[in-house]
């Protein structure tokens, strides 16, 4: 602060500013930067206090044995080597990959479908948009997961509905063959955010291409696959990256629907849920930190692959 005011006192009169010496110019720029950093401070403090410092600390913890209560003991890379002989860990990777490769396409397809349906000059567009966004607004909340649990439980809404037709529904939450799909379905239902982005993208598409296609007598599907989808590919790319990262980090629905255990028989043991169970349940925070860093690397890898492949299929107008 004192430095700031000192600079202010040294500030040259206006007349001198026409040809200021280089040193002064440097100071001047510095002063500008300082103000900028001042405005950035809230974000910077947040970045350091809540992201960067904890990340560095967790990197350190991942190389230790840490039970939360006594001081961490340095054990080098043991946590990382142990990971791949841990059967539950491998199971959690299997579950998570299955979740990511099914839920992301489902969600994006639902989002795109609804966005295209809404992009036809509906009168109450705002209303529909808000309605379809509502599930995402509730987001990964506990309330929605609890509701989902009720809907798919043995005596829940789905089975009552099936019962009307004389079908005895399965125990969707309790059966390891189905429990995972209730999570995928929940994720697919919350397509609001990518839908809004798609909708915004659709509104920007140049109409002349559509007019030309109409003159050429192109059918609806041709128009969609030859014009809409290629032009929309930057949005698809953006959503794909975001939703993949989100899917890898999914925690709440699996936690609530499986009562915090990842069951039945680890069929919903998503990566972050196992991480949580290891860190806070078994008090192996070092191990959990190592898991977090492996996840970080995997997400980074997926994102890198997306960006590398984007050159081949993402079509920027310019």
């Amino acid at each position: 602060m004192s430095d700031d005011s000192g600079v202010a006192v040294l500030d040259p009169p206006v007349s001198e500013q026409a040809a200021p010496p280089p040193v002064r110019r440097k100071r001047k720029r510095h002063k500008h930067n300082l103000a900028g950093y001042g405005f950035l401070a809230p974000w910077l403090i947040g970045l350091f206090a809540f992201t960067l410092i904890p990340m560095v600390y967790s990197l350190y913890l991942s190389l230790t044995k840490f039970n939360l209560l006594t001081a961490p003991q340095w054990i080098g890379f043991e946590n990382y080597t142990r990971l791949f002989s841990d059967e539950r860990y491998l199971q959690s990777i299997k579950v998570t990959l299955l979740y990511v490769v099914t839920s992301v396409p489902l969600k994006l397809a639902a989002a795109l479908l609804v966005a295209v349906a809404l992009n036809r000059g509906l009168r109450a567009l705002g209303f529909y948009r808000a309605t379809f966004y509502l599930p995402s607004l509730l987001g990964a909340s506990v309330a929605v997961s609890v509701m989902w649990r009720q809907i798919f439980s043995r005596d829940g809404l789905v089975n009552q509905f099936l019962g009307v037709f004389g079908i005895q529904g399965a125990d969707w939450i309790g059966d390891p063959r189905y429990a995972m799909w209730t999570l995928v379905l929940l994720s697919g239902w919350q397509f609001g955010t990518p839908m809004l982005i798609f909708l915004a993208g659709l509104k920007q598409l140049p109409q002349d291409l559509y007019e030309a296609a109409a003159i050429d007598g192109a059918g609806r599907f041709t128009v969609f696959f030859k014009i809409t989808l290629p032009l929309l590919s930057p949005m698809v790319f953006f959503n794909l990256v975001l939703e993949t990262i989100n899917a890898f980090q999914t925690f709440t629905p699996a936690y609530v629907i499986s009562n915090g255990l990842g069951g039945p028989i680890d069929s919903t043991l998503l990566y972050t849920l196992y991480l949580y169970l290891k860190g806070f349940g078994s008090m192996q925070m070092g191990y959990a930190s190592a898991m977090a860093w492996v996840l970080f690397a995997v997400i980074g890898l997926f994102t890198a692959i997306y960006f590398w492949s984007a050159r081949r299929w993402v079509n920027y107008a310019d």
Partner: protein
Amino acid sequence: MSISRRGLFGLAGGIAAASVAGCGFAPTSSGGAANNSLTFRWWGGEARNKAYQSALQIFTQKTGTKVDAQYSGYDGYFNKLNTEFAGGNPPDLFQMDTALVSTYAAKGVLTDLSQYIPNTIHLDTLYQAVRGAGAVGGKTYGVPSGSGYAPVLYDKTIFEQAKIPVPADTWTWDDFGRIAGELSKAMGQGKYGALDASKDDSGALQPWLRQRGKDLYNDEGKLAFTKDDLAEWFTMWDKLRKAGAICPPEMLANTDSAAGNHPLISGNIAMTTGWGLAQMQPLTQHTLDIVVVPRGSNGKTGQALNGGVLLCIPVKSKNPEAAAKLIDLFVSDIDAIKAMALSRGIPPSSKALEALTPSLSAADKRDVTYSQYVADEVAKDGLPNAPTAPPGYNDAKTALDAAAKQVAFGKMSIPDAVAQYFRDAEAALQGAK
């Protein structure tokens, strides 16, 4: 487009901020330095919270010490506590799960309470069997605040409708299987006589092992039964499962909390281990009752009295003397005992019970007479007290749950599941030392 997207991200940011704020930790015990106040943390339902608070009022009246009460549900309780311990700022006194006391004691964060016994904390009124509930390696780290035996809880209304006599106190595991089978037939398709208890360590497996002169753990914190024992246990349940006497494994999804979708409450099963009357009766119109866990062929119940919840003082407590006085209030102060009634389990002393009995509700009285009956039967068993659950107990429990369900879902053979359990449980117990 940029506007809508910015709006979008602003919205997402707002939601994120709100959710972060929502799970933030409440500031704790910052003013605890003064010697006339102390922070006390526990988990509990509404009944326990009210009961504890009225006891704390009595404490403040009698000693002039103010108590900062911090309470929540069990979910996340230990996560939060661990974070406070890690930050060097634990509460001055807190409620502990009996099964976890050795885990914390091994890490050196709990005060040895021996220094306060018998001058400040009067343990002599406690039942002999629970006095050691908080003992680890010869030191007392916790004092029990309640006690109990895990019974078999059954739906009396279903028994009456099926015209099947309710289980007698003398019933054995063979009787259990037979009655469960009869119930399944009488109740109709999709309903079953009993819950699959092959995963229930303290409510079913422990008494079964103790009936055979074994136990879950020994004093050294190692498993006190063999692979053959566990294979026999799994086989017994597997036969019942295949005969349709107990529920299929899909039904186990809702059995971890007392709620309307627990199969006993939704009427899909008629008997379960591991639950008491007090938690479940309020949830159903049916009449529930309890009976002792099936006996061994030698007539022993094998029951082990558990200390319920313990009260512990962290090493870093800012006011350990007052905390010790508060512990004493819970175990020996008649006014406080009356104020708390059964909200914390059966009081762990005969003095407390005598003072309480006249004012109890019918269901509460049933709980009391049941536990007195079991206490007498346990005395007849002549078995040693069950050792304190060792460090790593929680992971060993999870391993049993996993192995039992692998068998139940038919994903693993019994020998494979037994091998997996022994590998995982032994690693957990070893690793926690």
